[in-house]
Structures are given as C-alpha cells and as structure tokens.
C-alpha cells in the first residue's frame, strides 16, 4: 500500500477458492468428542427441541425406566440457571450443567469441557440436552451418535415444515406429550409425513413421558444402541 496517500498502488487482487466448512473448527472438536465417547464405550445422544417440548421430562421418564439396566449421565445446556440439572440430580444421575450465558446452542467445546467433568463417573449412555431452540443447535455437531429432535403436541403438527434444518440432520423424531392429543388439533400423520419429506431416514416415535405411552419403543432403541 502507498505510504503517502494510502492508495492501492503496488497491490493486487487475489482470489482464493476455499470450499471450507464455516464450522470446521467445531466439526474438528466434535470428531474428537466422538473419539472420546467411542474409546470409553459411551453412546451420546443430542436432544434438540424448542423450549418446553419436554426434553427434561423425557429424560426423567427415561432415567426411571433404564437406570437399573444402563448407567447414565446427563449434560444439561441452558442459557441460565441450574434448574434442569437439579431435576436430573434428584434422580441420582451424574449431571453437569452448562450455562451458555445467553447463547442459543451448545457447541463441541462446551460438551468437551463438560465431558471432562464427568471423567470419574462410570456410564454407558450420555444424554446431552441442548439449549431449548429448534433452529440454532442443528448447525453444531457435538460428536453425538444419535441426534433426536422433539416436537410436543401443543406446538402443532406443521413444525417440521417450519424448521426443516432440525429434521434434515436428525436421526430420530420424537412426538412428545401425546397424552394431550385429545385436547389439541395435532395431526400425527401430518407431522410424520412432513418430517419424512425432508429426511426419509428419520425414525419417528410418538410418546408421552407422563402416561408412559410409546416410552418402551424409545427405551428399546436406546438399549439397542448401547448393547447392539
């Protein structure tokens, strides 16, 4: 650059083709997480949904069902507070709360640090409850083996059409709070077919953590992952 007037004499334009993932750093750390999980024989599940879809309630019901068969641990992601972690702690399961300080998603670094805090615990199944948000967490790979997206009955059956990114990258679609079906205009078939249009390989399970309906199918899927 010209030192006298700051003009661009002596400089040229240079174009570089990168074709590089914006989140390459996160992807790299996620694959490290995955390696850690695999070395310890741990299956990691990333739970993604809007706030209030019943992620924590599902965890409580799942823990009650599986605690005697599979040792579990939980990483809780929330913008603030220890509330969700306390709910899990009451079940006697090791839990680490990650408060993102207002951020809308967990990333691979946060999961890596949280996983270190669980180092002394022995477990085979790790649930990572992402920050309640159906949009942002879907971009961030955490190194999980299974990505689960939840939509509850009160949210409406058109959710998959509104938030395709979450469904595109998921492995399992859980329709939660089915005990409320009689009170809401939720079309199970519509929700299912909209999600399958985006991602035909999705496994869809409808369940209620409250009544226990459908819970066994979900627990069996987890058993198959851990022991299969």
């Amino acid at each position, binding site marked *: 650059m010209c030192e006298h007037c700051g003009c*661009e004499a002596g400089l*040229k*334009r240079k*174009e570089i083709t990168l074709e590089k993932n*914006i989140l390459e750093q996160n992807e790299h750390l996620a694959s490290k997480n995955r390696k850690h999980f695999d070395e310890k024989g741990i299956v990691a599940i990333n739970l993604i949904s809007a706030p209030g879809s019943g992620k924590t309630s599902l965890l409580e019901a799942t823990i009650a069902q599986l605690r005697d068969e599979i040792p579990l641990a939980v990483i809780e992601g929330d913008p603030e507070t220890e509330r969700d972690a306390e709910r899990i702690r009451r079940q006697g399961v090791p839990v680490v709360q990650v408060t993102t300080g207002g951020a809308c998603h967990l990333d691979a670094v946060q999961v890596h640090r949280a996983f270190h805090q669980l180092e002394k615990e022995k477990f085979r199944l790790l649930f990572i409850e992402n920050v309640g948000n159906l949009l942002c967490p879907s971009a961030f790979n955490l190194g999980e083996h299974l990505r689960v997206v939840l939509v509850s009955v009160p949210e409406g059956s058109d959710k998959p059409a509104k938030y395709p*990114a979450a469904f595109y*990258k998921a492995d399992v679609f859980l329709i939660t709070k089915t005990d409320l079906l009689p009170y809401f205009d939720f079309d199970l078939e519509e929700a299912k077919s909209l999600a*399958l249009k985006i991602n035909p*390989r999705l496994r869809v399970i409808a369940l209620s953590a409250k009544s226990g309906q459908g819970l066994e199918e979900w627990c069996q899927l987890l058993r198959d992952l851990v022991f299969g």
Partner: protein
Amino acid sequence: MHEASLVMAMGEEIARLAKEQGAKKVLRVVVSFGQWSGIEKEAFCFAFEAFKKDSPLFKEADLEIELIPAVYFCPLCQQEFSPEEAPLCPRCKLPGLPSKGGELEIKKVEFLVED
C-alpha cells in the same frame, strides 16, 4: 441468532488465511448455504455488517451468499436427484438419503495482496 457465531467463526478462519497470504484487506467473501442449513440470509448479512465495524481487515469486504438446493441420493440406483415434492427417487420410487442441502461453506475469498 447463531448467525453471529457463524460470522465470528468465518472471520477467524479468513483472518488466519489472510495472515498466511500476507493480505492487506479482505475485498470479497463468497459463502454458500444449503437449503436445509437453517441459515437466515438476512440475519447472516446483518451479523456480517456488525462484524465488519470491529474488524479493520474486513472493513471494505463485500459479502455474497449462494444457496445450494437440496439433493438426495438413491440407495438403489446410486443416482442423485433433486426432489420437487417428496424426496422419492424418480426412477426407483424409493426414499432418498440426504446428500446436499446442509452446507455452511466459505466458498471463495478475495484479498488485496502485495503485487
């Protein structure tokens, strides 16, 4: 609003490359996003404008965004196809597997370097 985190990550990546290349300025950034990437184009542009204000290297940078349509892969005939409605293979009528559509990519960067 994870677009802000993405802009930050992208900025770090490009700044590292700029250093390697001995670049004085970033003139142009081309990114490509898949149809199902979950990126809001306007939110990304907004976050980029905010980022530019605090990053001298990017002060004059223009941002171009390309969108990549979703493409599916048929496990039977091994061909890729772009679905108009449901992602069923037009030949085999079987559900395809997602192949393209989740991309979040820095495609090209144009720098100002010493001649």
